[in-house]
């Protein structure tokens, strides 16, 4: 297709799907808590992209506002989550989620 043609909306959505899948992959395959956390952020970003895309489709800014809220929530989540990670590291001296398993037994 010519490089200055319009881009179908579905491509943005597929891109967001790919990013989401990558986030899931990171969540599943990584052991470092921080990386896992970042994978979650990646998923959130992917969702935001689809929000914005839909908001383009419907020519409404609501999608933007949703993703704005997602950002706010992500910020709060990051603050608390990183604090938790710090605490865990302080007590366990490890960042590997598999080694933080005392609730398991």
């Amino acid at each position: 297709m010519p490089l200055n043609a319009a881009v179908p909306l579905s491509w943005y959505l597929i891109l967001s799907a790919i990013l989401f899948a990558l986030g899931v992959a990171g969540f599943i395959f990584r052991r470092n808590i921080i990386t896992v956390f970042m994978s979650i952020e990646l998923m959130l970003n992917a969702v935001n992209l689809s929000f914005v895309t839909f908001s383009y489709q419907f020519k409404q800014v609501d999608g933007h506002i949703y993703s704005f809220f997602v950002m706010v929530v992500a910020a709060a989540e990051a603050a608390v989550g990183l604090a938790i990670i710090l605490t865990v590291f302080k007590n366990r001296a490890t960042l590997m989620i598999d080694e933080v398993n005392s609730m398991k037994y």
Partner: protein
Amino acid sequence: MTALIFFIFAGIAVFCGINLVVQTHPIASALSLVGVMGSLAVLYLQLGGEFIAMAQVIVYAGAIMVLFVFVIMLLNAGAEATTFQVSRFVKYLGAILLAAFLGLISLMIQSTLPRTEGVLFGAWQGTTLDVGRKLFTAYLLPFEVTSVLILIAIVGAIVLARKEI
């Protein structure tokens, strides 16, 4: 032009996303995530979300990820131990599941999305004015609630980060 920009930044985003997953060092992952966010911001601009694009950069890349990098540096988290031991289920099925998931999603998107006009840069602009208008009229209550949420998060973070926990 739109397509070109889309391809460039979509490529960057995907590359950085993959990089995030495969890199063993948290800092590398964090920076690739920042890359993803930056390119996503550009795509937002393309989709006419000027405010959300800037917010993406300011909030995500500028605050959240800085926080991540900060923590990584603070804990001086080294590279992940390469002993790749996950539960059998994940080891054997994870990749397949993901592939299936991705395929299904793409299929659904392709089959459901109405064949509307594609995205042309500047065809529609969700101006900051509109966002502000809506945010402070229709979405006022959620907005206030998020403020409460943030307050809670602040308090929680401080409590967690206190010395004697």
